[in-house]
């Protein structure tokens, strides 16, 4: 299955992936309206330090501990893609406690969680972070 993989040697730490992610999941048509002067809540997050940068998002694990730990059944795995039903989620954060990559986070407002769904649920249709990465520091492919 295709997943988002990181080539950390090419990551500039520009954070564009975070902006593309937040935009793709905003449901809005215009990036400026969606993001300008707003705190963004991306599902991919760049770590930086000492000349090393890399982006982290959901690994879509084959044996996902977040799904198994979810107390509501809101997290599910379907054809290898892990998604959250935010209508079922109550924001208990058990998944945040469980995810070994730190790739699940509270959504804006903190009442539910959010995570990368590979943009398969939004209008983008494929990972917007990868499309927007200027440097192929993240790629969407089979490995």
């Amino acid at each position, binding site marked *: 299955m295709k997943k988002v993989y990181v080539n950390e040697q090419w990551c500039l730490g520009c954070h564009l992936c975070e902006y593309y992610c937040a935009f793709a999941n905003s449901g809005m048509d215009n990036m400026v309206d969606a993001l300008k002067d707003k705190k963004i809540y991306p599902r991919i997050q760049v770590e930086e330090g000492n000349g090393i940068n890399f982006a982290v998002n959901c690994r879509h694990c084959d044996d996902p501990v977040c799904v*198994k730990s979810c*107390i509501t*059944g809101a997290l599910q795995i379907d054809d290898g893609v892990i998604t959250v039903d935010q209508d079922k989620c109550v924001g208990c*954060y*058990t998944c945040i406690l*469980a995810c*070994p*990559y*730190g790739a699940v986070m509270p959504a804006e407002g903190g009442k539910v969680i959010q995570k990368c769904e590979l943009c398969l649920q939004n209008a983008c249709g494929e990972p917007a972070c990868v499309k927007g990465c200027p440097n192929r520091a993240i790629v969407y492919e089979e490995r």
Partner: protein
Amino acid sequence: MKQTHTQYLIIGNSAAAVGCIEGIRSADREGTITLVASEPYHTYSRPLISYLLEDETDEQRMKYRPDDFYEKNNVTALLGKTAADLDAKQKTVTLESGETISYDKLLVATGSSPFVPPIEGLNTVDKKTTFMTLDDAHWLEKEVTKDTNVLIMGAGLIGLKCAEGLSGRARSITVVDLADRVLPSILDETGGAMMKTHLENHGIHCVLSDSVAKFEPSAAILSSGTKLPFDVLVIAVGVRPNTALVAKAGGDVRKGIATDEHCRTTLPDVYAAGDCAESLDITTGQEKVLALLPNAYMQGECAGLSMAGNDKPYDKAIPMNAIGFFGLHILTAGSYEGEALTEQAEGAYKKLVVKDGVLKGFILIGDIARAGIYTSLIKNRTPLSEVDFDLLKDHPQLMAFSKKERKEMLGGVKA
């Protein structure tokens, strides 16, 4: 009396039972599965009953699996039926209704029951409940109004979630506990004090280091002599694993049902999982009941796999709790014996516990971002000498791992 046969029999209908069904079905699509449960409801998430009281969820959304779960997994669900007797030699379970079911493999996932302490005068209290089931929540919905003063015995996870759930419905809520702090099973003194202040700021009155000596019909008399009047009483002082079926059949039972790393009991072809069973806490090396939903699911799944002939040990059990009150979240894991590193800020508390060169446990309040990175250090018993622990002390991050490990984590390189 009627006798039927099933390959897999499951007693219980919560997280462990569902984990077991999914475990069996990942290895065996065909074998017949029968599930027996006392409660007449589709599988629902027990911890959500407090969210139901707050109107943060409803009965449909509380369902732990979709409506077609039993059908899709080809499970015969006998809901509203109680298992009365287990004959491990004959490999049969007899129900209270009289019918007998024979099995090849049995999972006991009977959960736990609220402990009701024998306190003088408790029988004179008219309006009282425990807080464990959907029916309990519905009873509280009915009984608690804007004029109701609620007294909750127990400032643990269940008692305080009940308090939060009722806070918008009741006139007053008082919680009383013998412990000197709230959430004594998961918090230290500092964390407990912080949460107590937070709860009191939201109108939950906490009476600690005190206990109910006796009840009058509408008041509790505490050991200190204080009299607390109430209209509705909630008893949440702890739970007891439901072990009777296995004990009576001759299986080993300690506090919970004794199990091995495949969730097998000492009875042949009988497994146990969830709140009725013990598992090995790898942070202390002790066998204990880890009454936590994720643990129940994973034990159940492990049992299901083993029942279907696909052994995969469950050997990473640790205590872990995610709980929040009025928007302030607590994530904890592991055990707290060892060297403690603590940090406090406005609305936030962090404690990391290190022993024998590995992370043993943590408490995070407020700032909980990416806590699972800490959890996995505990589960994997990662030597802290192999990671940049100074970075991790600051906050959980993958930068603290070696380039090679990051390639495995993020680059799809197989270990």
